[in-house]
């Protein structure tokens, strides 16, 4: 469904993303992992139209969308959430979600109905009239998710939707995300919470310092020495292997 | 029906040069006013709409010192500059900082409200009649051939350059100056190393007003004072700051001179009335095509 080929983005002398390639098959959940500052959110920004790539192309459902504007990308069915949540603070929860619903629904009352329905999907049905600015971080993350859902996406880009949540909240969100996938939405997610990555995603890409360093089934990818080094530092892979060898012996 | 006269009048190069030179002198005042504005923006990230009104207030102060005490306007700097600093400090600490909640547009509105209060209070206390200061030397000067430069104009140029230099010395060599630059660059970081940011904000605002007070002193011998004069200067000051680059001292100087020259040339070629539109036009063009100005940091 989504094909990203040889994407690069430079900011002055800094190469934020170099020659990145990934693909997301329809109906699957794919994760994008890597240490902080690796370029994950930049990649999302490139895919969703907030940044223009210097090189490479982005194909969504066979269409080249590199250079498209964010709202056009959204109207195609590719929607992103933000790592640092951006609620419409002075609007209520239902008004927030309704903005997403309005992408396809023209009538206000219909949009509000849809908003209530979507709120139920993420467990916010009791909070419809609360101002978004008063929500906790978990609530805001769920609101962000609900808003994106209301736009009837085909592909959802979730940027660290679990960050800042406690274990219970993570369990809940994981179920919600699985439910979204089951309803036919394809998902590409950035995540640091490894248990979520392992339990949710069918496939993983690892990015470090702007470059793709590994890809594969999550279980394999987390054993990849390059990936371990990226997260834990130089030589870490060998040390871990040595430790495991000693404990086996 | 006669529309524009698109044939620009042709002048001798001497006339044009003379116009440009008077633009330089005018521009030096603009630069000084803009200096305070750009400092305030650079540190507090607020656009001080009351800047013009404060200039007007300072000019009245200079005028009344002259009228009441017979004090020479240039000498009056000794009083109005510290006075301006204190007033600015209290204004920021007591009113602007409190009311704005740190939001950009709100601060703009608060300073707008302040400018209205100051202007109308001036109207109330001083009435709308223009006041002029006459000093014995205000018509003396020397002849440059292309134009005649009066001493007040020269004083304005000299004063502006000297004050800019002193300010630069202050910012680079004193502890407070360095603290100000730290806060301008990285507010949170400055707080973390123990700098009292609210105090620095107020000091910066105070310095901005002090610059305006100095400019007032330099302006009074050549400009009549009336309550509306602040409004006239506000747009010019903003244009200079935006052209020169928000937060840049050099920008304020260069911008001031450029605007002064453009305004005089505009007046020369388009007439008194239409000439002042050059300022609005420059402002609009800069905002659209190079909002960071000549010396400011480019956006994004």
């Amino acid at each position, binding site marked *: 469904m989504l094909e990203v080929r040889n994407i690069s983005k430079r900011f002055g002398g800094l190469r934020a993303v170099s020659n990145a390639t990934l693909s997301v098959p329809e109906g699957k959940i794919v994760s994008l992992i890597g240490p902080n500052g690796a370029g994950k959110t930049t990649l999302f920004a490139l895919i969703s139209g907030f940044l223009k790539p210097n090189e490479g192309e982005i194909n969504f459902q066979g269409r080249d969308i590199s250079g498209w504007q964010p709202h056009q990308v959204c109207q195609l069915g590719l929607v992103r959430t933000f790592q640092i949540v951006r*609620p419409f603070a*002075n609007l209520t929860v239902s008004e927030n979600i309704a903005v997403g619903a309005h992408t396809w629904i023209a009538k*206000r009352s219909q949009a509000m109905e849809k908003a209530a329905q979507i709120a139920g999907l993420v467990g916010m049905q009791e909070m419809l009239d609360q101002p978004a600015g008063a929500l906790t971080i978990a609530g805001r993350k769920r609101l962000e998710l609900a808003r*994106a859902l209301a736009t009837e996406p085909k592909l959802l880009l979730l940027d660290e939707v679990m960050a800042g949540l406690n274990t219970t909240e993570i369990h809940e969100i994981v179920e919600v995300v699985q439910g979204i996938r089951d309803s036919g939405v394809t998902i590409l997610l950035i995540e640091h919470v490894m248990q979520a990555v392992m339990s949710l995603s069918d496939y993983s890409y690892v990015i470090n310092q702007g470059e793709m360093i590994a890809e594969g089934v999550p279980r394999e990818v987390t054993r990849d020495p390059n990936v371990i080094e990226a997260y834990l530092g130089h030589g870490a892979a060998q040390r871990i292997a040595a430790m495991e060898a000693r404990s086996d012996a | 029906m*006669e529309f524009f006269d698109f044939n620009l009048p042709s002048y001798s190069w001497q006339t044009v040069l003379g116009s440009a030179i008077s633009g330089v002198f005018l521009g030096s005042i603009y630069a000084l006013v803009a200096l305070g504005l750009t400092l305030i923006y650079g540190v507090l990230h607020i656009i001080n709409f009351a800047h013009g009104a404060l200039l007007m207030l300072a000019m009245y102060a200079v005028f009344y010192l002259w009228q009441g005490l017979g004090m020479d306007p240039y000498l009056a700097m000794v009083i109005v500059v510290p006075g301006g600093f204190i007033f600015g400090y209290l204004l920021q600490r007591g009113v602007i900082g409190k009311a704005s909640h740190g939001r950009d547009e709100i601060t*703009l509105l608060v300073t707008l409200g302040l400018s209205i209060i100051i202007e109308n209070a001036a109207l109330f206390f001083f009435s709308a009649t223009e006041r002029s200061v006459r000093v014995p030397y205000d018509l003396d000067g020397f002849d440059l051939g292309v134009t005649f430069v009066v001493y007040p104009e020269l004083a304005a140029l000299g004063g502006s350059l000297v004050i800019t230099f002193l300010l630069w010395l202050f910012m680079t060599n004193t502890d407070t100056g360095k603290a100000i630059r730290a806060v301008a660059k990285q507010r949170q970081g400055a707080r973390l190393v123990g700098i009292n940011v609210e105090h620095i904000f107020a000091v910066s605002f105070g310095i901005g007003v002090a610059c305006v007070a100095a400019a007032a002193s330099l302006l009074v011998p050549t400009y009549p004072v009336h309550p509306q004069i602040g409004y006239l200067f506000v747009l010019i000051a903003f244009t200079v700051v935006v052209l020169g680059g928000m937060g840049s001292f050099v920008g304020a100087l260069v911008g001031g001179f450029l605007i002064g020259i453009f305004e005089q040339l505009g007046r020369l070629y388009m007439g008194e009335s239409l000439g002042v539109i050059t300022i609005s036009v420059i402002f609009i063009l800069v905002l659209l095509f190079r909002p960071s100005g000549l010396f400011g940091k480019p956006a994004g």
Partner: protein
Amino acid sequence: MNSRGQLLGLCVLMAMLAIVPLFVTSGRWIEFLELTLFVAVLGQGWNVLAGYGGQYSFGHAVFFGTGAYLQALLQFKFGWSPWVTLWFAMSGTMLVATGIGYLSFRYGLRGSYFALITLAFAEAFHVLARSLDSITEGGRGVQLNLNQDPARAIAEFQFNFSGPFLKAYGFYYTIFIILLVTYTLTWLMANSRFGAQLVAVRENEEAAMALGIDTFRVKMKAICLSALITSSAGVYYVQKFLFIEPGIAYGPAKSVEALFAPIIGGLGTIVGPLLGSFFIHGVGEGAKEVIVHFVGDRPGVDLIFFAIILILVLAYLPRGLYGLLEMLWMRLRDKYHA
């Protein structure tokens, strides 16, 4: 307060204003109401762009002045009927808004930069109006002929010489109908999909983009609606006073008047500008009496008063008078429903 409650309140207010002439006969009070409603319309124009759209303009006089000048000049130069010129005045102003909006929004100007560029445009128009003598009559201003034939009062859209009812209440009902229409438009906007998208842009422009909103187009529509409303106030002004000149049309006074009422009354609410206008003019009149009593009648004193209220509202009452009333209503409701 829910949408139904708001609509009810609004209808009640409008009904009260409609029947006011039955109770008020003093010319002075009618003048007061005309002024209050005029500022309420002017303020609603600003409110649409700033309160709902989050784009604070400091040069809103540019829309008032263009509406006024077009209304005046088309009558003055070509003798057209005021009922015809008003359409040109409003659409001409919308054209200007499109130009200003396109330049500002295409180049991504926001916040203070947007405020300043609108100020620059207002100043530019001010200078043009003053300088392009042959087109705008320059500093002389445009003086329309006073119609003295009562039979032509409605045709000429002037009520100074007409039947007794029109003479007393003609202009009042003119501005009232303008108020009704513009406030209805605003209400329809606020409760439509466009309204939801506009406030989304105000709250967080990037998030709005990510949700499929073409923020440029939304802002353009907002500035055009704003210009439409503001220019209608300009049309009214010309018909009532039969005179316009550059300072009145494009000077800072109208730009400031346009923002006082909505901020004090409640930004981003429909009734805010009306509340704010009543407060400013009502309380202002009262306060002025007191001040005049103590210090004599001096110009500008009332502006000081309003500006102080502005700063206090900005500091302590972010939702304005409307927010205050809403809070009181909630407290009352909780007390009696608990």
